């Protein structure tokens, strides 16, 4: 099965419909269990996609199982359905829905069927929101193509079991009236072998009917990396860098409260910026394999999330010279009165605080060393990095 969650009660209301795909097992690529394709493009098996998919699905589903849990929340378009496909050698289980039966494999045919079912639901209401998530192999020529599990099955049609994501997005814009968010966690490196073949381009999941005008309200596509670049995941089967940043951003590390509004809203622009900054923050100590997300945001902003709580900021506060750290208290004092501090420790002060305006500084509890203070700092999600000098 692919439909793992459906809220039938919300069918007549605007809802959020999710299609999430994780492909880690590629039998016809290097190291796979099947016959290796003649042209595997140098691609191997992936550990991260099933784990990343799990992180995304748990995030969406958790609040529907445990009230108040961190996860998807949008009273204007509550979670209406979740469709998933996974290709993995190990059993796939979700914390949020431990009882679900086995999820179908992410073959090209299954992806097509799941996409069409998801699209049909998305078209059933003009204010539905669609979320398309993919984690697995991808490549670029002129367009961005994503690889299904059975990629490489046919050597006569070597790219047949991939699909053209660029044209899929273009086509979708003319079919739906609501808003769509695409989160694409894959490489976008250039595949010269694909470029040097004729008449074998991967097909889109949907053909663009150019008789129709663009009808969607907004479309946000956030890519794990820029055109021609690679995306990365930690070794050992952990959540990929991009998905980790995405789930973190969605979990309360971005949002804007507009004048007179009760809730903090997260739209494509805010989410894309938060993901990019979180990737940068995560990579601050890494010298190589830097990864910078890419995005396109079209149309009028439509919120994906509406949060009741004030967004959080990851604070990274240091003091130089290092030998002074253990002599000082590092602190953040909010204009609302809250105070966060770390005293006399020889380490960077890392803490999550609600967004807002703060006095940020370092002071000697003994009162002998000079104090350092930034009196009016705007702590804007998702991260705040500052090095004080004493």
């Amino acid at each position, binding site marked *: 099965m692919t439909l793992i969650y459906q809220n039938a009660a919300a069918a007549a209301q605007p809802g959020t419909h999710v299609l999430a795909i994780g492909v880690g097992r590629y039998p016809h690529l290097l190291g796979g269990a099947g016959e290796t394709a003649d042209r595997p493009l140098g691609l191997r098996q992936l550990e991260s996609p099933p784990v990343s998919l799990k992180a995304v699905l748990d995030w969406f589903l958790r609040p529907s199982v445990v009230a108040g849990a961190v996860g998807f929340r949008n009273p204007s378009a509550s979670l209406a359905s979740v469709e998933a496909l996974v290709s993995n050698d190990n059993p796939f289980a979700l914390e949020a829905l431990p009882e679900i039966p086995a999820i179908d494999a992410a073959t090209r045919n299954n992806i097509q069927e799941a996409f069409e079912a998801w699209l049909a639901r998305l078209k059933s209401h003009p204010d539905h929101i669609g979320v398309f998530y993919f984690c697995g192999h991808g490549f*670029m*020529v*002129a*367009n961005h193509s994503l690889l299904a599990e059975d990629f490489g099955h046919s050597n006569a049609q070597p790219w047949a079991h991939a699909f053209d994501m*660029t*044209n899929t997005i*273009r086509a979708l814009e*003319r079919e739906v009236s609501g808003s769509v968010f695409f989160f694409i966690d894959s490489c976008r*490196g*250039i*595949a*010269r072998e694909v*470029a*040097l073949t*004729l008449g074998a*381009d991967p097909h889109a999941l949907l053909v*663009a009917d*150019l*008789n*129709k*005008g*663009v009808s969607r*309200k*907004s479309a946000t596509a956030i890519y794990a990396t820029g*055109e*021609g*670049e690679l995306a990365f995941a930690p070794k050992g089967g952990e959540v990929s860098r991009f998905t980790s940043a995405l789930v973190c951003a969605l979990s309360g590390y971005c949002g*804007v*409260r*507009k*004048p007179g509004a009760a809730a903090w809203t997260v739209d494509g*622009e805010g989410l*894309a*910026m938060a993901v990019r900054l979180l990737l940068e923050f995560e990579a601050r100590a890494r010298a190589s394999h*830097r990864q910078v997300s890419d*995005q*396109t*945001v*079209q*149309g*009028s*902003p439509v919120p994906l999330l509406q949060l009741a709580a*004030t*967004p959080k900021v990851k604070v990274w506060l240091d003091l130089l010279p290092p030998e002074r750290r253990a002599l000082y208290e590092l602190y953040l004092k*909010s*204009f*609302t009165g809250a105070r966060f501090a770390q005293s006399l420790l020889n380490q960077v002060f890392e803490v999550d605080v*609600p*967004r*807002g*305006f703060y006095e940020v500084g370092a002071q000697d509890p003994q009162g002998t060393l000079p104090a350092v203070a930034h009196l*009016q700092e*705007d*702590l*804007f999600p998702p991260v705040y990095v500052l090095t004080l000098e004493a």
Partner: protein
Amino acid sequence: MKHLEVILNYGTADSHSTPGSNLALPVRALDTDGSVLAEGVASVLTPAVLDLPDTTQIAFVRLTWPSGRTETQRATFDEGSSQQAVIFTDARIYRNEWSAWAVPKLNPRSPLMMSGGEEALNLDLNRFKRTWLRLWKFVAGAWTREELKPQMSYRSDAAWQIDLTLESVPWMLQIGGSNVTWRFVSLPGGGPARVLMTPKDSRDPRADALKVVLTSFRTDAETLLEFLSRDAMRAAETLADSAALATRLFSDKFTDPVSALAGAYYLLRLDQWSRVPLRWFENLSTSFPWLPDAAVIHCVRLLRAGVRTEDEREEARTLLARSLECGWPVYAKGSLYCRKLRRFFRSAWLESASSSTECAISEPPRVGPGQLRASMDVRRINPVPSNGSACRVPRDAGDTTRPFKTESQDHFARPRVPLSGGSSRRRQKWLAESHRCCSST
């Protein structure tokens, strides 16, 4: 309600001879927890007046530059007071008065700023002394070399600036050298243009060694596009005042077609193209055939609305072909649309198109001997300037006549042609695309 006046006192922008003479920037009043209390637009000519809730005691006013940099000031309402004002000045943010206009367009950590620059950044322009500039002009279907003769030139240890006056045709500034990425920068024709070059303003190893900032003294249009280029939709929306600014820029197309492009790009980006009649797009493309952007914009507008007849499809094809035959788009957005449309047409209709249209879409414009072969075909470009033609970076502060070279500002078009200094992946991608285009003919 309490009223908060936000004044933009940019001294360098109070003269109509400077690019920022009508600079307008989005401002927001925020609560202590960062909630937006009110938002508006403050310009050099007109302060913003923000209405705040009666309960407001402290508000933080955030000014956002096109570069993304923000500056925040606190406004405190005394007991019984219902009015307050904050003033943003530029007196402390630039190193040289002549380069002040460019600072809001640069990275927040630009070395051109008096404070906030990173000390470790090497600002010494002399290390680019082997960099050269060439000016190209598109006339009669070909790019031809023009002598670069700046009307005015300024130079400091961190930046070099030239002023040009360009007639109404497409222009390209070519930048090359032994230690910079070779590239072309599209210059806006039809009036004055100012080009500022400065060493890169970030530690990002992928950033080009030289940063180029351009202005055509169309502050409203350029500011709008700069926000859009960063996907800062909220700021752009605030600035555009619910698309009124964009519509006004577009409506003035016969007076200033280049600014009209910015208005049209905004309306397309925000899906508000139906606010204006189709004939505006038609007039723009037919009245200004020398502007590739105009044809691109018209083509995108037709496709957005849907093309239901063969005549409409042919018109869209013709518009794209025309845009590819008349130079290079002024704005980066036009260049991006061009690339997307080229891929789009190839997969959608190319097989069924007439052979002449097919050629026009798939082949770069032809040029004669001694001319630039085509801006898109990097392999045909002579990689070494001929003797005496290279314009070197002036080493002396007093040298204000010889041109120099560098990269471009994001919202002005830069052909994505990875030259010798580009990354191998970008080159591969370009070559892959080139191959695919050739294979379709």
